[in-house]
């Protein structure tokens, strides 16, 4: 457990110093938001607002996972593999990616609301949705990019593998977002529990299965 935390801290420090992955992904998200603004000028309905926002986060997340897994130096990985059990390794990766996607999501939320406003009434619930949603999306995409990195795959394989499994998470996230934009008292509990359950299932599966994946 201590290994995981120290490794995560180390990785975050490196990333914030060099900003390889973060900057390119953020550039992608910023460009997408700007194109949306140029094309749409305003977004009238909250549902469309949510759709665009989560689409951008989704594609940014795929970009992020691609950068962090496939472009990694082989030598660094062997070092990690020797000090951590493989289950711990994948949990570190997932938490790391989750944290970075959350950063990107929050910053893009800022930019997006700069251009289009924030049609949300239950702000706290919406923040929780953004945080939990970015963890859900990035955990699935990280696991799939681990599989595709082993398969010498390309970014297309990551998208193909993750897309079916992402659908329920995205449906739940969109439901939560649309509920948060309503101007009345809403019950978030069922959808939130579904989202958390999905995250937990992916974590557990990744922890149990990664050892077999990484055998050589």
């Amino acid at each position, binding site marked *: 457990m201590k290994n995981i935390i120290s490794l995560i801290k180390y990785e975050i420090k490196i990333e914030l110093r060099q900003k390889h992955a973060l900057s390119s992904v953020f550039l992608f998200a910023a460009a997408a938001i700007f194109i949306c603004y140029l094309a749409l000028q305003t977004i009238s309905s909250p549902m469309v607002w949510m759709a665009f926002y989560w689409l951008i986060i989704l594609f940014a997340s795929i970009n992020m996972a691609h950068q962090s897994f496939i472009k990694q130096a082989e030598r660094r990985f062997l070092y990690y593999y020797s000090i951590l059990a493989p289950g711990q390794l994948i949990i570190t990766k997932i938490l790391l990616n989750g944290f970075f996607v959350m950063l990107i999501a929050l910053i893009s939320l800022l930019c997006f609301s700069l251009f289009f406003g924030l049609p949300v009434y239950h702000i706290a619930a919406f923040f929780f949705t953004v945080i939990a949603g970015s963890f859900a999306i990035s955990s699935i995409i990280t*696991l799939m990019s681990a*599989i*595709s990195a*082993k*398969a*010498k*795959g390309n970014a297309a*394989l990551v998208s*193909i*593998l993750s*897309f*079916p*499994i992402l*659908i*329920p998470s995205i*449906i739940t996230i969109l439901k939560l977002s649309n509920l948060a934009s309503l101007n009345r008292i809403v019950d978030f509990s*069922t959808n939130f529990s*579904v989202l958390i359950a*999905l995250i937990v*299932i992916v974590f557990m*599966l990744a922890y149990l*299965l990664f050892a*077999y*994946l990484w*055998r050589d």
Partner: protein
Amino acid sequence: MRKNWWKILAVILVLYTLIAGFLFPVPRLFILHETIRNLYFHVGMWFAMMTIFLISLVYSLIYLNTNNSKFDVIASESINVGILFGFLGLATGSLWAKFTWGAWWTNDVQLNGAAITILTYLAYIILRNTIEERDKKARIAAVYNIFAFVMMIVFIGIWPRMNDSLHPGKGGNPGFSSYDLDDYMRMVFYPAVIGWILMGVWFLNIRTRLNKINQKLIEIEDQ
């Protein structure tokens, strides 16, 4: 004949389903009318698909433990057969929905879950095609298979029950037992499901043997 008794059983059960499915009495319900007989066929496809994917999961697990490639052959061929049953289930369900619910596809949780399952297993096939070396292919595919099966249970079994659905038994509708599995339908439904599963196993058996023959031929040519 001793080895093939289950094939004969499969044929008898499916023939029985075909004949009794049309001739035996069924409950008289509005909206569904006679199409309730579709239960024996449409639901049979899904049960067959899930059983064959379960077989695939078991063989994937055995492969991960033993690294013997013949188990991997069975695992991969059973996913091919299961996908066939899945497509047939989707097609029969879509046709049934058009004439009872009014649309080919609805934004229903059970339908989305079924479609996602098929997509997940299609991604399995794509994953297998991407990797070249046989051992690596088998190992990575086996890991993904375990993941895909757990996801299937979540998407078909658990997620629909938590949301509203048009299907009976999920999301607030009364379950199957309340309006159609009366005794007459039970008499045809259970043998039908077993019959379709056994037919699926027969398809699997043929595909596995064909795969082995192809491999042996390649080996003989290399010599």
